[in-house]
């Protein structure tokens, strides 16, 4: 007996199939071509002298000895680059009242964080450039540094930006009304304060670029390890005054980005200027030590939350205050307030209650800039919400899973909106919770937990429901004045030999974008996927688009590919109809062959249509102009965001004598709408969960009192590694969005969104017998032991 046939058994049915990534073998074999691998003729190398102080005035810079060193071609200071590069400011119009100082590639007279690049050297080799850095003398006059969040908010705090009246970057308030009344009427009011440490993305491949300005043609080519080549094409064009058509940004193989590689970094902007000043290619690759003090950091929030529940455990209201510190500037061009903004808008999002009030306070400090990193804001919103739900469940005396089942927005209540105004098309919290109970064997785990406690083994179970923002519309950045596209475009051609070439604006950083685009195109055209070649990441080759961030690759890029492929297919069938003297509607394409719809009879290979159209157009009826290349764009319409949802579970053990936490198993039930490639979705979820687990237990940028990063190396900054990671069990619910034909939503941030919340709840569950609780992330042995009063 064989299994019944499904739609996947049709030829070329790739949507929903676990197809291996076409680039996986090449990358695994070490044949990736990253920016670091690039060696251009006459290429020079840049290195940067960095500030040792968190805040200081630059009284003088002596570069003469460095300039004199053999092999050095250029030593540039802030003033040198300011002559050719216009400043930028990391604010957006829709964040009313936000401020940030203008920024330049290198500072003119003041450094604002320890590690900020101050002087650039360009030399024959990186080693010579670093030799020259040792010969530069900078005369600093130290200024008082604003290090922690509370210090920044103090009334008499030193100012990060002396021209401002305070260290406040941005404030926001949300109020649905009725909050005070709900709290007054509540049977229980739960209060807790949370702190979330800073962490940083730590991509395998650091930031890297080769800027290549060709003075005679005025053409700038930047080979850039970025996820958003079009955004950088626009920025390099505008800030260096080069017409956009003469700026080409190429993103070759990228070793991970996670949101880190879409911000403007001072060194990167400087390298473009250095190439312009020299008229030669200049390479800069951040080493790991530099990455820690110059890649964006993220999180760093302190949240105060209150929740009102009735006697039966029904959530009535939430009232929260989020304060977050973002470094000395707001990041350009996406700002550093999006995370806080999403924290206050996502808190409580899975739950059915009406009264919500939130305030957000974003402050400057003398540290590395924070900005968007995988799951922007979600982990904070989720941890706060889910811990409050657990605390409420304990207060009311309800099981945590039952508490959630009784409070999530019911699956039949859609469309609906959150108290913060997010509009939900269709979510599936109830079915996800039921699935989680099954895959965890929840009741069995509870029994095991209780039995082990008798033997002095303390295990915890944590649950976290979540909502994820994906497929953002122009409401995200465009309305704020950022030239960041929310649409994507594809150009698909039938080649003369009947193969297919798809150039698309979404980009590939290792997650499999090219794989799923190839699947969609092959599926829609009716050809084998090995005959579809997908090109990404070159502004001169691919259409303009938003590229890859905020979980938009599959939902928006995928839909662009689908709609373009359908148009090309119609064009192919039109030519086929002329050749076969049939109505195009009576024909279809299956496995690279034109067939009759009526009986499936094979009529003509697609390759033959291409041959005739390209080489023997004289045999087609007069006036025929075959269009075998189609370009088409898709911008999301309808809902401003495609929200996804899911729930995660965690099972762990706390060693109460050492404070160590051992992760035993992690569970995810996730609904990202139409799944294009289940294997890649599972990879995204697992990778996301691991980053969330890293945040929960390990990752934290620790600073000293003077604003020095204390653990800026991979020996001291702990990223999650395989030995400490649990098995991750994954299950799916599919609720496609009706806003697109494809129905896909994003999945790349779902794992990160809830994993740390789950661990927080599980650790606290394990500590219940001791009356101890932890409210800070990461959950270190020191924090666990402190909560248990063990030292």
């Amino acid at each position, binding site marked *: 007996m064989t299994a019944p046939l499904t739609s996947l058994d049709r030829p070329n049915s790739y949507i929903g199939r676990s197809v291996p990534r076409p680039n996986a073998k090449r990358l695994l074999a070490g044949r990736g071509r990253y920016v670091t691998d690039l060696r251009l003729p006459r290429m020079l190398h840049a290195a940067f002298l960095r500030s040792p102080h968190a805040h200081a005035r630059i009284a003088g810079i002596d570069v003469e000895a460095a300039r004199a060193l053999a092999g050095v071609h250029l030593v540039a200071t802030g003033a040198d680059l300011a002559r050719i590069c216009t400043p930028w400011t990391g604010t957006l119009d829709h964040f009313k009242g936000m401020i940030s100082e203008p920024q330049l590639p290198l500072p003119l007279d003041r450094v604002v964080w320890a590690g900020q690049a101050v002087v650039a050297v360009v030399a024959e*080799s*990186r*080693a010579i450039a*670093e*030799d020259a850095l*040792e010969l530069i003398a900078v005369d600093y006059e130290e200024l008082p540094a604003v290090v922690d969040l509370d210090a920044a908010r103090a009334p008499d705090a030193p100012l990060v930006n002396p021209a401002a009246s305070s260290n406040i970057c941005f404030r926001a308030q949300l109020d649905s009304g009725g909050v005070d009344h709900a709290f007054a009427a509540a049977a229980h009011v739960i209060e807790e304060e949370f702190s979330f440490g800073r962490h940083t993305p730590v991509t395998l491949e650091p930031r890297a670029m080769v800027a290549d300005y060709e003075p005679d043609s005025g053409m700038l080519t930047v080979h850039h390890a970025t996820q958003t080549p079009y955004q950088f094409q626009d920025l390099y064009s505008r800030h260096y005054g080069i017409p956009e058509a003469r700026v080409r940004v190429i993103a070759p193989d990228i070793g991970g980005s996670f949101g880190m590689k879409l911000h403007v970094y001072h060194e990167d902007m400087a390298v473009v200027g250095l190439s312009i000043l020299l008229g030669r290619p200049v390479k800069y690759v951040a*080493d790991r*030590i530099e990455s820690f003090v110059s890649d964006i950091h993220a999180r760093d929030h302190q949240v105060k939350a209150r929740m009102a529940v009735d006697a039966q455990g029904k959530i009535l209201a939430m009232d929260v205050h989020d304060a977050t510190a973002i470094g000395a500037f707001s990041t350009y061009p996406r700002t550093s307030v999006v995370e806080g903004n999403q924290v206050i808008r996502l808190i409580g999002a899975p739950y059915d209650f009406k009264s919500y009030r939130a305030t957000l306070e974003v402050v400057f400090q003398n540290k590395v800039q924070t900005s968007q990193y995988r799951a922007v804001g979600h982990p904070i919103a989720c941890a706060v919400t889910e811990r409050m739900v657990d605390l409420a469940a304990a207060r009311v005396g309800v099981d945590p899973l039952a508490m959630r089942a009784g409070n999530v927005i019911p699956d039949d209540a859609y469309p609906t909106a959150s108290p913060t105004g997010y509009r939900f098309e269709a979510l599936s919290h109830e079915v996800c919770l039921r699935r989680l109970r099954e895959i965890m064997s929840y009741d069995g785990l509870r029994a095991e937990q209780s039995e082990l406690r008798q033997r002095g083994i303390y295990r915890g179970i944590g649950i976290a429901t979540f909502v994820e923002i994906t497929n953002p519309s122009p409401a995200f950045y465009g309305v704020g004045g950022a030239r960041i596209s929310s649409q994507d475009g594809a150009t698909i051609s039938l080649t003369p030999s009947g193969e297919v070439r798809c150039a698309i604006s979404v980009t590939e950083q290792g997650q499999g974008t090219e794989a799923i685009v190839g699947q969609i195109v092959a599926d829609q055209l009716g050809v084998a996927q090995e005959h579809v070649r997908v090109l990404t990441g070159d502004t001169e080759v691919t259409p303009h688009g938003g590229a890859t961030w905020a979980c938009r690759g599959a939902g928006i890029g995928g839909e662009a590919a689908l709609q373009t492929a359908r148009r090309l297919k119609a064009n192919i069938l039109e030519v086929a109809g002329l050749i076969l003297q049939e109505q195009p509607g009576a024909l279809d394409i299956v496995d690279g062959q034109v067939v009759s719809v009526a009986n499936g009879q094979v009529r003509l290979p697609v390759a033959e249509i291409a041959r005739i159209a390209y080489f023997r157009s004289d045999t087609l009826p007069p006036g025929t102009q075959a269009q075998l290349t189609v370009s088409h764009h898709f911008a999301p319409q309808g809902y401003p965001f495609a929200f996804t949802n899911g729930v995660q579970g965690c099972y762990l053990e706390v060693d109460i*004598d*050492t404070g*160590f936490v051992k992760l035993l198993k992690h569970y995810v039930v996730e609904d990202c709408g139409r799944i294009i490639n289940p294997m890649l979705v599972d990879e995204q979820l697992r990778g996301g969960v691991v980053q969330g687990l890293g945040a929960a237990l*390990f990752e934290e940028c*620790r600073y*000293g009192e003077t604003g020095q990063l*204390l*653990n800026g190396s991979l*020996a001291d900054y*702990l990223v999650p*590694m395989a*030995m*400490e990671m649990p098995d991750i069990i994954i299950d799916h619910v599919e609720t496609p969005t009706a806003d697109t034909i494809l129905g896909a939503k994003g999945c790349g941030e779902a794992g990160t969104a809830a994993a740390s919340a789950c661990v927080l709840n599980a650790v606290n569950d394990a500590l219940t017998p001791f009356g101890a609780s932890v409210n800070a992330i990461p959950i*270190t*042995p*020191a924090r666990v*032991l402190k909560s248990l009063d*063990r*030292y």
Partner: protein
Amino acid sequence: MKARAFSYFRAGTIDEALAAHADAGDDARFIAGGQSLVPALALRLQAPRILIDINHIDELRSVRREGEWLRLGALTRHCEMLTEPLVAEFAPLLRAAAPFVAHPAIRNRGTLGGSVALADPASEFPAMVLALDAEIEIAGPSGRRCVKASDFFIDLFETALAPGELLVAIRVPLFRSNQRIAFDELARRRGDYALVGCGMIATLDRDRIADISIALFSVGNVPTRARSVEAVLVGSSLDAGRIAAAQAALSADLAPADSDDVPAAMRVHLARVLLGRLLGRLGEVR
């Protein structure tokens, strides 16, 4: 970051290596596995004029029995601690510590001599060499000498090695049938430097401890013997009360400093927990 330029010399014998060092006016470093030195060069924390490669000096290689000692050449790789039968038989404490030393790629290159000569207070082998009352063979411009482990570790990254001297071998007393060992560490991730680690070797007289040597690492500037604890244990059996007394005595042996993520009191607490667990294990294997 890239290292500053340096010269390179491959020594064929100990004498060649010593002569090259002297020729460079001691602005030189011996390089064996390079697992600590190469990163230090890349970070420009060290910038010697010349690197003297000792990897090809045969005399530094062998592991062999010499009378009542097991002699481990300085070039013995960490991975050989896991695979060499003589280590398993005669120095099981080193064998027990080896899997905790970093990761396989580092163990393939890193050497015992390099680890002991560097004397990182968070490393496993220097502390175990101390626990084993090993002797360290040194070659220098004025000839050969031997230093007891207890005299070797002086302060943070400071040892009895004088400039221009080369660590040749480590000699540890042969393990005996009436001895027992225990080793463990508390590291947040497998392969990391531990928050605290401990190894011990006990000589039993029936159910009593005739002698015991306990060394801890990641507890101060140097690998540290827990002599007060040892004194509490010698002559007694390992019952719960005695283990508790040993744990209580530990604070007299340790004075760690606060670090930014581990307060001193927490480190002492963890050391006490680890000591208790290891003594418990030692009691069980009898």
